[in-house]
């Protein structure tokens, strides 16, 4: 009993205390001017900077502002931030991809096909009209050395690697239109995968060949006066019995040489960029993916142009001209062929016949 009544007294005393405390606080709040001020100013003072977001509250389920400027910028490729390691992924929309697709599946594929088919038909026409270009004075039976072993080695290194690269490369553009329907998807994919590997590795043989021919032939490939005459006469290719004088290389061969050197350099650089995707950053002011697109486009254009040119080179070096293949075959050409097609060079060589030629091991040619 006493415990309960004691407890009640306790509670009553506490309640009174609490009331007094509350009352005092209340009174203080009403009469303290400082405190009153603080309460009414939940809003910032008039001179404070407000409205920093322009009224937008990010993350509100019902937003208050149309953000079309942002989306227009995004459509044009503005980059955001991502929390994943691959920072390239910050690009939301890359419209260059559409252009890349259009260029690759359009002009490159079409013009490449037109160029290749056009060159083959031109050569066929040329063969029908002009026939094989024969040695006018007949074969003499005596030969002179045209290309030393190192020259032929370099040529064939470049030639064989180029043909492998060209075929595997053409497969990447045209395979799905021609080979795929014949072979079926699995076989075609397996061949293309092998082709890709071959392409990646043989590329180094091509680059080596390129460097060697540059070193051994650059001295013979600067333009001379004879080249202009040769070009003006169309190289004598269209008229029987016309043979404009030429050095070791005629103007056509010199043009081919420089096309191969510059084209080969372009192919090598873009090829290396493609071989190591996103690992080489060219200071071109482009996003990495744009650099890759740029590299593939250039690679394809240069490769197609070179392939078209090389088809003509292969034609004239084999079935197009009597005696021409020997130059790169055995290295020994017929004297009459040399006099007709490379008269200046033939004269130089016969003058210095007794001396072994520069860069060549002394080995008696059959005619000597």
């Amino acid at each position, binding site marked *: 009993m006493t415990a309960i009544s004691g407890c009640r007294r306790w509670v009553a005393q506490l309640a009174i205390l609490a009331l007094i405390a509350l009352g005092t606080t209340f009174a203080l709040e009403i009469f303290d001017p400082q405190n009153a001020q603080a309460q009414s100013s939940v809003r910032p003072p008039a001179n404070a900077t407000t409205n*920093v*977001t*322009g*009224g*937008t509250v*990010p*993350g509100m*389920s*019902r*937003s*208050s*502002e*149309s*953000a*079309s*400027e*942002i989306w227009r*910028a*995004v459509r044009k490729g*503005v980059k*955001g*931030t*991502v*929390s*994943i*390691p*691959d920072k390239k*992924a*910050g690009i*939301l929309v*890359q*419209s260059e*991809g*559409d252009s*890349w*697709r259009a260029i*690759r*599946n359009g002009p490159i594929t079409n013009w490449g096909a037109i160029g290749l088919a056009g060159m083959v038909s031109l050569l066929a026409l040329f063969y029908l009209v002009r026939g094989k270009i024969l040695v006018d004075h007949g074969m003499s039976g005596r030969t002179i050395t045209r290309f030393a072993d190192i020259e032929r080695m370099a040529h064939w290194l470049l030639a064989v690697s180029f043909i492998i690269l060209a075929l595997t490369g053409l*497969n*990447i553009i045209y*395979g*799905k239109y021609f080979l*795929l329907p014949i072979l079926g*998807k*699995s076989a*075609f*994919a397996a061949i*293309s*995968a092998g082709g*890709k590997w071959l392409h*990646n*590795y043989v590329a180094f043989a091509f680059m080596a060949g390129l460097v060697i021919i540059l070193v051994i032939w650059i001295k013979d490939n600067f333009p001379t006066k004879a080249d202009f005459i040769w070009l003006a006469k169309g190289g004598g290719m269209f008229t029987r019995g016309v043979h404009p004088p030429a050095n070791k290389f005629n103007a056509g061969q010199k043009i081919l040489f420089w096309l191969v050197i510059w084209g080969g350099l372009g192919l090598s650089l873009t090829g290396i960029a*493609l*071989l190591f*995707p*996103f*690992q080489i950053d060219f200071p071109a002011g482009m996003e990495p*993916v744009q650099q890759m*697109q740029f590299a*593939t486009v250039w690679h394809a254009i240069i490769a197609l142009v070179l392939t078209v040119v090389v088809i003509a080179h292969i034609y004239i070096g084999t079935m197009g001209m009597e005696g021409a293949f020997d130059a790169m075959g055995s290295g020994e050409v017929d004297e009459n062929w040399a006099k007709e097609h490379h008269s200046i060079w033939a004269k130089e060589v016969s003058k210095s016949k007794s001396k072994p030629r520069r860069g060549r091991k002394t080995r008696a040619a059959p005619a000597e």
Partner: protein
Amino acid sequence: MARMKFLVDAERCIECNACVTACKNENEIPWGINRRRVVTINDGKPGERSISVACMHCSDAPCMAVCPVDVFYETDEGVVLHSKDLCIGCGYCFYACPFGAPQFPQVGNFGSRGKMDKCTFCNGGPETDKSDAEFKKYGRNRLAEGKLPLCAEMCSTKALLAGDGDVVSDIYRERVVSRGFGSGAWGWGRAYPGQGA
């Protein structure tokens, strides 16, 4: 038949990356590959917006158009899938894709990137539906299980929507009406600046 579509409502996305995590876990995606990612525009500035992005399963898909070995196909529901068995890892799909969706296991070891991987709309690949082989190569085939992509199912703010394009656009249309403006409607920000709703 339904045409499957993704839609991201940038007014709702809070950049929590739950979709990214859900995708990784559901499909057991290896380290380094992100089928889905969240991109934030104007990070930390007024007007910040985030967008979750993966393969959008485009109509007239650019990846399909450029693939030299023709590995892509489109399902009846408009989902763009591919065969990893056929892929030669040339990376062309990545160059063409507007959304940066295709992913490769390697950066490039002599041009070998490995087989391309990308969002399948949780619809697997050419293998038998729900088979082990399919799961290992492409992840879960939730569509075959009668479910929608997990990223969208998991999205807490329902910023990311996935499913029948008609239903998705109906939901979005309702939101747009209730907001009183076409979120991202072309020209509004320019024509009526600062007017808000």
